[in-house]
């Protein structure tokens, strides 16, 4: 599947939607700091992997898809499914997020923070993309296997043999 970037898609997003993301992102980041101060770095660290963007992003994606479907009358509304596909991608990205955390945990006490964050971000992206590709390949092979099993051509005499074995 081809990966594509469409800058024109940014025009669909209203300024209020950008504001919601900014407030949500800022609030979660501040909350992570407050919790770390109150309960220590071990509990505070959990909140560095908060699904900060996801609820707002999935809701906006669903809204835009519903609007598009309404504009093109007759088109099936697949908004919930599209948001679900986005969530499946986020699940793959979260494996990259764990890899990011491992790199920061291991490298931060020994190397400069800028170098550690750059390396960890690269590792996050590489692992996330690898997991996304692996999921695609596994799904494709599973689908092909299922199709093969259910749409297997009937060999002459097979049906009568099956019928005899299952009275």
């Amino acid at each position: 599947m081809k990966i594509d970037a469409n800058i024109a898609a940014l025009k669909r997003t209203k300024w209020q939607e950008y504001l919601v993301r900014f407030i949500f992102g800022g609030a979660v980041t501040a909350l992570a700091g407050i919790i770390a101060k109150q309960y220590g770095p071990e509990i505070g660290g959990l909140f560095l992997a908060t699904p900060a963007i996801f609820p707002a992003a999935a809701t906006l994606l669903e809204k835009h898809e519903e609007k598009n479907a309404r504009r093109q009358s007759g088109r099936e509304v697949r908004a919930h499914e599209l948001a679900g596909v986005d969530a499946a991608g986020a699940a793959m990205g979260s494996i990259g997020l764990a890899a990011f955390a491992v790199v920061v945990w291991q490298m931060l006490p020994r190397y400069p923070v800028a170098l550690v964050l750059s390396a960890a971000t690269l590792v996050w992206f590489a692992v996330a993309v690898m997991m996304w590709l692996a999921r695609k390949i596994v799904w494709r092979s599973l689908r092909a296997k299922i199709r093969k099993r259910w749409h297997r051509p009937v060999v002459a005499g097979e049906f009568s043999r099956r019928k005899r074995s299952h009275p």
Partner: protein
Amino acid sequence: MIEILLRVVIGGIVVSAFATIADTLKPKSFAGLLGAAPSVALATVVLTVKEHGAMYASIEARSMILGAVAFFIYASVASRLMMRKKWPALPVSSLALLLWLGAALGLWFGFHKLTS
């Protein structure tokens, strides 16, 4: 107070930047990868290192691994509910945050019981 405001501004900018990049990408399953971008960590680690030192931030990162595992559970459940059950995104993604919190704290307590 200034530190919290700084976190709000930097966090808001980083989270918005990742969300804006995700808006432009296709297919949506690929754009979804950016939904799990390390935006909060990128926004806070530098501030944490300046304030408390590298060891403190390193301990936070170790706990973040468990937070990421909880994120995986959260996103997998949300994806299933939206794709199979066709539930709307807002209630699913918001209510499932409780699942993320429960999973993250549960994993943390479990990890501590195992190691102590």
